[in-house]
């Protein structure tokens, strides 16, 4: 019988939620790293017992933890994230130059094939790689030193590299996304990068259709179609059918096209999920109703999924890394909220129930199907 393991990062520790393939009864364990911010945990696709975690605190900085037994026990790994050479400056909120300063690791993306290789997306935005299971980290400086780097500016959460997508057909080809710079693509394993933002339009920029500067909140890909990308931007839900060369808006009939996460069904590459949020200053669902929206056409036409979700007086947010799917036949969909609930659907989003209701604010959700 299959097992599902949900890895939850919160403002005050990490939790591991486990169930069998029925996904009805759950065992909740944690907190691990109690009191620390856990921005992200993710397991290696090549060895599911290998799990990496980003542990940080305003007092004591960044740590990387590694488990080799599926999250039961952990060991601290290397935590030295030094930018390569003179880090230079990016744009500050007021438009003045601001030195690049490491703050934290937002996202860990293990290699699809090698459990010891893992990428880290950090704030201030840069991409690091470890090839020794997290013991040491080296920046891939071609991204940060892109000619547009001095113009990048932080979003409200900081200048963060929050999404790393690896092309399953070619591990040298990757997409990353930065708030607020946009999407970049590499074809040479991270040596050189090109912006991939044509078609994006952001009213907060002096040049709304600029090549770089967009506040991309998350991008998603189905592994069977690495040239089709979906994006939740600050405002607008977007789609690319040419590997990020161009984007078109697919917000369609969403009640708001602001939001953070976007995710793809495990078995239906054109079934995608978003959680509309009212606005960039009102970070809660429209009308106090927590609704996941699903499109079965890869965008444009959306249906609200409400069964089991609060439909009045709900004012939580769902952050960008807080949605995931499992790989069981009837695809499970999961998301966590800033109110500490983790909701699960075992039927592709038709109905939902909380696995746990009262965790600290949820920063990330990842799922392993074992």
């Amino acid at each position, binding site marked *: 019988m299959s097992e599902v393991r949900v890895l939850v990062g919160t403002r005050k520790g990490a939790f591991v939620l486990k169930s069998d393939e029925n996904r009805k009864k759950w065992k909740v364990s944690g907190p691990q790293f109690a009191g620390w911010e856990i921005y992200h945990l993710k397991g290696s696709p090549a060895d599911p017992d290998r799990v990496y975690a980003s542990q940080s605190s305003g007092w*004591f900085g960044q740590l990387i933890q590694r488990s080799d037994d599926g999250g039961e026990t952990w060991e601290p790994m290397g935590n030295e994230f030094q930018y390569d050479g003179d880090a230079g400056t990016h744009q500050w909120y007021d438009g003045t130059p601001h030195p690049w300063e490491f703050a934290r690791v937002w996202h860990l993306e293990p290699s699809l094939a090698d459990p010891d290789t893992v990428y880290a997306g950090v704030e201030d935005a840069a991409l690091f790689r470890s090839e020794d299971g997290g013991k040491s980290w080296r920046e891939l400086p071609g991204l940060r030193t892109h000619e547009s780097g001095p113009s990048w500016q932080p979003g409200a959460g900081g200048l963060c590299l929050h999404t790393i997508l690896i092309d399953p057909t070619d591990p040298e080809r990757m997409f990353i996304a930065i708030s607020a710079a946009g999407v970049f693509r590499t074809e040479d394993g991270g040596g050189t990068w090109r912006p991939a933002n044509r078609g994006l339009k952001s009213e907060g920029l002096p040049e709304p259709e600029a090549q770089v500067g967009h506040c991309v909140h998350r991008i998603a890909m189905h592994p069977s179609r690495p040239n089709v990308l979906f994006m939740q931007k600050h405002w607008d839900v977007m789609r690319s059918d040419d590997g990020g060369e161009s984007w078109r808006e697919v917000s369609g009939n969403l009640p708001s096209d602001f939001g953070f996460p976007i995710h793809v069904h495990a078995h239906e590459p054109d079934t995608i999920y978003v959680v509309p949020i009212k606005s960039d200053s009102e970070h809660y669902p429209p009308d106090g109703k927590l609704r996941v929206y699903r499109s079965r056409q890869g965008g444009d036409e959306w249906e609200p999924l409400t069964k089991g979700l609060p439909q009045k007086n709900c004012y939580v947010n769902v952050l960008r890394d807080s949605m995931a799917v499992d790989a069981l036949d009837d695809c499970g969909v999961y998301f966590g909220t800033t109110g500490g609930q983790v909701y699960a659907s075992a039927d592709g989003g038709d109905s939902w129930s909380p696995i746990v209701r009262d965790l600290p604010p949820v920063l990330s959700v990842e799922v392993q199907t074992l």
Partner: protein
Amino acid sequence: MRIRVVLPAHLRTLARVDGEVELDLDGHPTQRLVLDALEARYPMLRGTIRDHATLRRRAFVRFFACERDLSHDSPDAPLPEPVASGAEPFMVVGAMAGG
């Protein structure tokens, strides 16, 4: 010379120690010698008290001893005699900023 170090709770958990840490030093202790010895014994603490590269104290960390704030003393200044003798601990303290 054996000196005593008090760590904040989160760093005790990280280093997997209970209570105070005792360190043997060669020569009169300074902040730098204490932290060097502490990080050598507990490598997981590297980067949590002071920056890896610059060795500057992290902004939300303070150093106290003998009811004095030593945070802004030179890292190479001799620590007070009661710390050197082990009568008083060198305290690594997280800033009072709950969150």
